[in-house]
């Protein structure tokens, strides 16, 4: 039986070395294109380790059950986060809450390089298929900020209001997500990559499908009454707050701007 390399060489009708280079390019492309393509590549042809590199480098051990998983093919977790982690196929738990030692070990392992590439691709251009809007419990709050610390704090505070919390790390992703899930409230940083938060507000407010969204803009840069007036007049923001962001400020934004009928303050929420 011919090796996979020989099969490709014959199929593409090029001499050996060119076929070798072609395969390397294919593997690199499929890795970038996503795991579905690579799964087809691997399952259909059988992985050739000398072509795709040492596949054991893609493995990682689950933080909870110690099962071995493949960082190339493991599913994303369903935690609402701008940085989801991977799910163990054995115990179905993700490593979002793995302890520090495990995370440090993982992040310095070869498997983490694959995870980071997938994560970057996911954040930049691949949006997981949004659940049907009707299925998402309201209120839906969208937080847009390139600072992950803000998302951690927002997740904590806004959990008190029930509903669904979604995250984006740049203005364009925030706009796409808002158009998909039609949030009740958008809380966005002003100074964002790709699309300024104030510009995001203007686009949402001038679109028939999203004009009902309330928008709060947070800023550490555009401070003062002049910028505030401009934000309200020109960019149609509903609230304009200056950073640093505190839990009380976030709560006030949500309390003031969410439709009161939708607000469900959880019993025993953080004070």
């Amino acid at each position, binding site marked *: 039986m011919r090796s996979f390399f020989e099969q490709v060489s014959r199929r593409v009708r090029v001499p050996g070395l060119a076929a070798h280079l072609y395969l390397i390019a294919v593997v690199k492309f499929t890795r970038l294109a996503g795991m579905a393509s690579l799964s087809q590549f691997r399952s259909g042809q059988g992985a050739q380790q000398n072509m795709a590199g040492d596949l054991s480098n893609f493995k990682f051990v689950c933080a909870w059950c110690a099962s071995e998983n493949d960082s190339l093919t493991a599913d994303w977790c369903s935690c609402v986060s701008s940085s989801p982690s991977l799910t163990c196929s054995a115990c179905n738990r993700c490593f979002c809450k793995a302890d520090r030692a495990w*995370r440090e070990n993982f992040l310095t392992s070869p498997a983490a390089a694959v995870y980071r590439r997938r994560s970057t691709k996911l954040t930049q251009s691949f949006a997981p298929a949004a659940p049907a809007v009707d299925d998402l419990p309201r209120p839906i709050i969208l937080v847009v900020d*390139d*600072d992950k610390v803000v998302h951690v*704090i927002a997740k904590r505070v806004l959990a008190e209001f029930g509903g669904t919390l979604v995250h984006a790390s740049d203005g364009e992703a925030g706009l796409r997500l808002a158009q998909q899930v039609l949030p009740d409230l958008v809380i966005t940083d002003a100074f964002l990559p790709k699309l300024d938060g104030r510009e995001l507000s203007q686009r949402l407010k001038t679109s028939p499908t999203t004009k009902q969204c309330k928008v709060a803009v947070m800023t550490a840069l555009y401070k003062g009454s002049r910028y505030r007036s401009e934000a309200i007049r020109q960019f149609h923001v509903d609230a304009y707050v200056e950073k640093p962001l505190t*839990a009380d400020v976030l709560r006030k934004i949500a309390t003031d701007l969410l439709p009161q009928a939708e607000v469900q303050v959880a019993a025993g929420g*953080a004070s």
Partner: protein
Amino acid sequence: MNHAAIDAEVFAELQELADGDAAFFEELIGTFDAQAEILLAKARAAAKAGETDDFLNIVHALNGSSRNVGAMEFARVCTAIERGQAPVSSLTLMFDMLEEPLRVARVALREYLQPTGKGLD
């Protein structure tokens, strides 16, 4: 938290928000720590390449993030750089100003995370 690099008031608010949840602090400080490392590396590269706009954008990001966890000493250095008030003119020297205060802040925050979670009182 009793460390000169970390603002006690900001940290107290985070403790109140955490309400005894050690996992929240792990996530918060771990997120800041990991993000700061990445941003610092990007700042180093931007400074070396002479990319002033990129460098200042990264410093702005570091500034905002550090304020959210109370790393005010470091945030003040960032603000000085952003406002053109740094006592140095080259990007590489401005980058050098960032390293030590950020290191101190990160160490202070990491020390707060005790394995047993006892640091939460």
